[in-house]
């Protein structure tokens, strides 16, 4: 197990550099001339030639791809993420954005696991029953409403009409302010979690080892809780691993609606203003989150199913 983790960590370093190079190259190829980049920073106001000249110089916009990437990497190795085209240190922006988005994602994932997995298990056991059908319809409904509709709706009803939650979270929100956006974010994964769990549970109920366990006369709770659930969770856990990274990046709309200056918002801003270093900084960390989440998932496999070994 230890050797497996070390090997994976070393792979992560390679993946990290590969991913940053790729993202940097994509941003670079999409970037217009220096004058265009600077114009997109300021909107529709005219830019003076002197301003273009000085900003071009400051951000090395007139240099080739490898030189620009070299400058960026040199800084990164000294733990300096560089400055965004607006002049703010990207390190500061990352430090400010990540904690908020992580809290948001935690609320979302916990909510989705709690309700999604529970509903899935119950539906799987009582297949074709009323609860099963109701869950199927509800999750179908939830899956078909895009977040761009769901988020403002939730904000309108629970934030403005009922005043249960603050309508927006703002820059430095407490857990309570993040609760509603977290639920909105989590509800997208909830449907998938519950359906994955339901199918998996339903299938495992027919497995030989479940029949054996029943035949041995084990209590029903133990058969379901230990034998069925443990094995059924493997596909769900795999999906959660992928989903965590997705939740962080996918928070663009939720963060926008609830005014949370997190990762999604910064990515959106960086792409809009062709701010290469800003996008690469955030994407690099997203890559790390993905990698770590998937490492944890792999370790979880071994916990859930002792037959899976890493040597």
């Amino acid at each position, binding site marked *: 197990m230890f050797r497996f983790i070390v090997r994976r960590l070393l792979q992560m370093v390679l993946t990290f550099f590969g991913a940053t190079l790729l993202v940097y190259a994509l941003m670079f190829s999409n970037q217009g001339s*220096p004058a*265009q980049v600077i114009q997109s920073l300021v909107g529709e106001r005219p830019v003076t030639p002197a301003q273009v000249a*000085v900003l071009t110089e400051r951000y090395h916009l007139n240099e080739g791809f490898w030189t620009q990437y070299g400058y960026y990497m040199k800084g990164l190795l000294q733990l300096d993420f560089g400055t965004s085209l607006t002049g703010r240190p990207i390190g500061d922006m990352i430090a400010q954005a990540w904690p908020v988005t992580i809290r948001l994602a935690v609320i979302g994932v916990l909510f989705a696991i709690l309700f999604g997995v529970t509903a899935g298990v119950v539906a799987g056991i009582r297949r074709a029953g009323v609860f099963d059908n109701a869950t199927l319809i509800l999750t179908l409904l939830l899956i078909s409403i895009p977040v761009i509709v769901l988020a403002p709706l939730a904000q309108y009803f629970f934030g403005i009409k009922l005043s249960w939650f603050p309508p927006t979270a703002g820059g*430095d929100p407490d857990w309570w302010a993040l609760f509603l956006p977290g639920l909105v974010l989590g509800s997208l994964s909830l449907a998938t979690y519950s359906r994955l769990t339901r199918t998996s549970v339903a299938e495992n109920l027919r497995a030989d080892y479940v029949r054996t366990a029943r035949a041995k006369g084990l209590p029903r709770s133990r058969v379901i809780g230990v034998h069925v659930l443990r094995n059924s969770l493997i596909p769900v856990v795999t999906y959660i691993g992928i989903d965590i990274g997705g939740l962080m990046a996918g928070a663009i709309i939720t963060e926008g609606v609830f*005014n949370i200056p997190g990762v999604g918002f910064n990515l959106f801003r960086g792409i809009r203003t062709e701010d290469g270093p800003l996008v690469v900084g955030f994407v690099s960390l997203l890559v790390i989150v993905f990698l770590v989440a998937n490492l944890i998932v792999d370790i979880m496999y071994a916990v859930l199913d002792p037959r899976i070994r890493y040597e």
Partner: protein
Amino acid sequence: MRGKTLKMAVATTAITLIATGCSSSDPDDSGSSNSNAVVSIEIAEPQHLIPSNTTETSGAQVLAALFSPLVDFDKDNKPYEVAAESITSTDNTLWTVKLKDGYTFHNGEKVTSDSYINAWNYGAYGPNGQGGAYFWEKVDGYADLQSTDPDGEEGPQKAPEPKAKKLTGLAKVDDLTFTVKLAAPFSEFKAVLGYTSFYPLPAAAWQSDGVLKEGFEDAIVGNGPFKLKGAWQHDQGIEVEKYDAYPGEKPKVGGVNFKIYQQLTSAYADLQADNLDVVKTIPTEVLSSAQTDLGDRFKQSPASTFQFVAFPTFQPEFAKAEVRKAISQAIDRDEIIKAVFKGSQKSARSFVSPVVAGYRDNTCADACVFDAAKAKAAYTAAGGPAKLQISYNGDGGHKEWVDATCNQLKTNLGVECVGTAEPKFADLLTKVESKTPVGMFRMGWVMDYPSMENYLGPLYSTNGSSNYYGYSNPAFDALVKEGASAPSLDEAIKKYQAAEDILVQDMPVIPLRFGQNTFGHSNKVKNVEIDLFNRVNLLKIEAVS
């Protein structure tokens, strides 16, 4: 000042509100005001807070709290002195600025001539890359502070250091008096001084002569009615509180919390829940429901935006003024405003905005009056192109009205017409500058200072900073120049109006719409006014207690 405001549709019904917010001194306003309350105002994340680098509305709104301008504008949009005692000139070239005594920066420093001279030299110096640098263009010695890259922006060579570091046109007389010498006479220079870029900076701002201290921007020190509370919390908010030693007109609230929003719709949600006091621009999406939602808290006031469609006059098919006029005549402006902007903006039939002195209604006359039959006859007679195209930037919410305009041209002129989106404004400009045939293209303008000159000069003179359509008429250039050097405002206006009459003949652009501020406030504040620059008047706003 262009940018954010341009992208938002603004609203009004017909004749409302000549002056900014005459609706506010409502006798029905109940409740006394609480002079210690903190009110909250929606802004977007400012790009910068150094005055000479602040050219968008959010930054300007914050600076309006922290700084006191030399001049402000009264309800007729004429400049009056605030931090200045007097601003005078005998020949419109050499201007003497006398400062009021008793103004201090928030760190206790006295505001002196040097506070202005140093800040302005910094702003004008090319290598500092300040967004508002062009405001000093008119001052003597500006050219020597700039340098151009010898091999263009793409080349490897660096631009050489400019010849000078300081404007020769700025001279200190004594601690409270300084003079500004312009390169050419300009009768309305006093109005120019009302812009954000002309605020002073304290000695504490400087690391060394001409070098700004690192981090000063996040903890900026001004000379205005409010001082910064804490530091600028990026993407979150900026808080200011009353500055007790301010000698000018005292604000009626204890402080202002500028809350930063990424989306106007989320600010609007907070406004409805009374979590936020002022939304400066009601988002277009909710424009139709906002009047019901907010009732008499839904407000409108004039703004300076001017939207138009420009012709690439250098292209042969648009070279004839008759063709350009016929196209203008084929557009039903009122219909588009009703259908697309829900009756919010106003139809434009002049080349300058109604918010400046010297504006005349319907200068464009026949060419802007919708008449499909006449338009078609004139278009055919002049041999207009069989295919038209209107280019616009896709990120600015222009698709709807451009498509509507195209449809009208199709029906009324019997031509083909397509609206073509460029991803961003910068892409559109690049194409236009390289004379790529993009057909007609949309443009907009927000004024920097209230003067006809600020519309005519940059947009239509041969070397105008925003003249992207190659329009050039020596007679027009001469009249604008004569206006700028005219001995009095009235004489200047006569020249400007004569210049505008030339535009009516030549029709280099089609005037389409004038903007309006459409804003709303919570139940917790009253006397909310928004000026021509989309800024809340912080001296007027009161909290209802």
